[in-house]
């Protein structure tokens, strides 16, 4: 038996197929992952993401701490409630994890990290925090997290959890958060759709889930979560990047703040050098022109430019064809054709810019 979220019994009652995900017993789907995918694109759905690691870091030097810990610059966070996506790097520039950090006030930042990397993340954060006197690092195992995503998600949340939320939550710009009573509501997500991620006391989670369900929000499993994020061109830690790759090779240059050049952060030297010498590999999108499904680790033969590998391959329910993220040599250009070995048969793929889908519409 793995770890279970406070919503485990709700999942069983709703007929979830439970699978192990990074040591957690999580719902893969509640019947059909493709139908769940379409519900989020066309209406809305809710995800139990309570397995994710919510950590509060508090103290006078909390901003200094994140300035050193993260490849992105927390000095971009000027207004309270603003969120920032960043990688946390090893000294060699490899990605330990990707995360979202919320600036709550000058003494309190909240971080949400991945579930499967919890132990190494906490070891790293705690060890880095020792250099900063008076910081407290508190994993919030007393909290749960529900993501409600889709074009109708926000309206359904107000219906289910109360009109009182409409003013404070509705006023949030993208990538912001606010606390409303016991709820922490953020306009973040992992689907490419509108919606909220709601962090709440674990005890309140089963009831809240039920209220959302009664308001017509269907549960969505991790299967659809993966195809939704892939269509939205969002990286998955452990597949698209890990400690052997830098953010610059992982399509995450936009999350690395090399300016100002005097900000020291862990991993900076390697990124500076890579930037100066040219980044050897890049992450691109692939679209399969024929039938079949692209899969992780399939080899990509880039005519004349060498070889690459699919880091996330799947079937796009919105586009009704196979799509992938792949790490390929820097010389590969958008619009190129490449060849993927599909179970022993060569198949032609087109190199594209991602995201593949945003707000329900194809970007291709």
């Amino acid at each position, binding site marked *: 038996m793995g770890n279970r979220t406070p919503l485990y019994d709700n999942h069983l009652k709703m007929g979830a197929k439970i699978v192990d995900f990074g040591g957690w017993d999580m719902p893969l789907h509640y019947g059909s*992952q493709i139908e769940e995918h379409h519900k989020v694109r066309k209406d809305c759905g809710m995800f139990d993401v309570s397995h994710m690691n919510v950590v509060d870091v508090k103290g006078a030097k909390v901003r200094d701490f994140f300035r050193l810990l993260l490849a992105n610059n927390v000095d971009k966070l000027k207004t309270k409630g603003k969120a920032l996506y960043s990688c946390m790097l090893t000294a060699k520039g490899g990605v330990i994890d990707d995360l979202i950090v919320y600036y709550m006030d000058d003494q309190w930042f909240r971080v949400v990290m991945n579930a499967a990397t919890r132990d190494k993340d906490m070891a790293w954060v705690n060890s880095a925090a020792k250099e900063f006197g008076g910081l407290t690092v508190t994993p919030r195992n007393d909290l749960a997290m529900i993501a409600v995503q889709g074009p109708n998600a926000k309206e359904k949340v107000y219906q289910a959890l109360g009109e009182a939320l409409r003013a404070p939550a509705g006023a949030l710009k993208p990538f912001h958060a606010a606390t409303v009573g016991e709820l922490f509501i953020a306009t973040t997500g992992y689907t490419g759709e509108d919606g909220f991620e709601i962090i709440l006391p674990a005890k309140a989670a089963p009831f809240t889930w039920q209220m959302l369900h009664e308001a017509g929000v269907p549960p969505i499993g991790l299967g659809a979560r993966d195809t939704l994020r892939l269509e939205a061109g969002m990286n998955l830690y452990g597949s698209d990047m890990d400690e052997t790759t830098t953010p610059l090779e992982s399509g995450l240059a936009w999350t690395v703040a090399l300016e100002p050049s005097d900000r020291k952060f862990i991993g900076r030297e390697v990124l500076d050098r890579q930037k100066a010498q040219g980044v050897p590999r890049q992450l691109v999108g692939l679209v399969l022109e024929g039938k079949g499904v692209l899969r992780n680790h399939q080899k990509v033969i880039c005519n004349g430019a060498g070889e690459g590998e699919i880091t996330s391959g799947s079937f796009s329910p919105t586009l009704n064809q196979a799509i992938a993220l792949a790490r390929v040599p820097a010389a590969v250009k958008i619009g190129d054709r490449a060849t993927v070995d599909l179970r022993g048969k060569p198949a032609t793929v087109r190199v594209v810019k991602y995201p593949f889908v945003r707000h329900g519409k194809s970007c291709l």
Partner: protein
Amino acid sequence: MSTVPKDLKYTKSHEWVKLNGDGSVTVGITHHAQDLMGDMVFVDLPQAGTKITSGKECGVVESVKAASDVYAPVSGEIVEANAALADSPETVNKDCYGAGWMFRLKPANKTELDGLLDAKAYEALVASEKH
């Protein structure tokens, strides 16, 4: 509804076989197999006239999650493949013993059919795989 119909024969690789009474058999994959794989998105089947060999792969089903070979339950020649599955592979999930059939086959040697599992033996196989 039983997920292992009594009137069918089964393979260890999770195909079902229906004896049609006209010398041909119909083949598909079982409820257990489609449930393990999840939503089907692509089905590649042998064409009519193809000779297939017992226990060898003769087709591919792909779900969002995984790809899996379809194995020939007995040797023989394909009479007809279910063309409808090319455009609606989800039929395999919705009706694996009915509209989700994969192909009809004329067995080369009918005694090979005796080597297939009956419903009871297949149920026992599925139960043993769940542990």
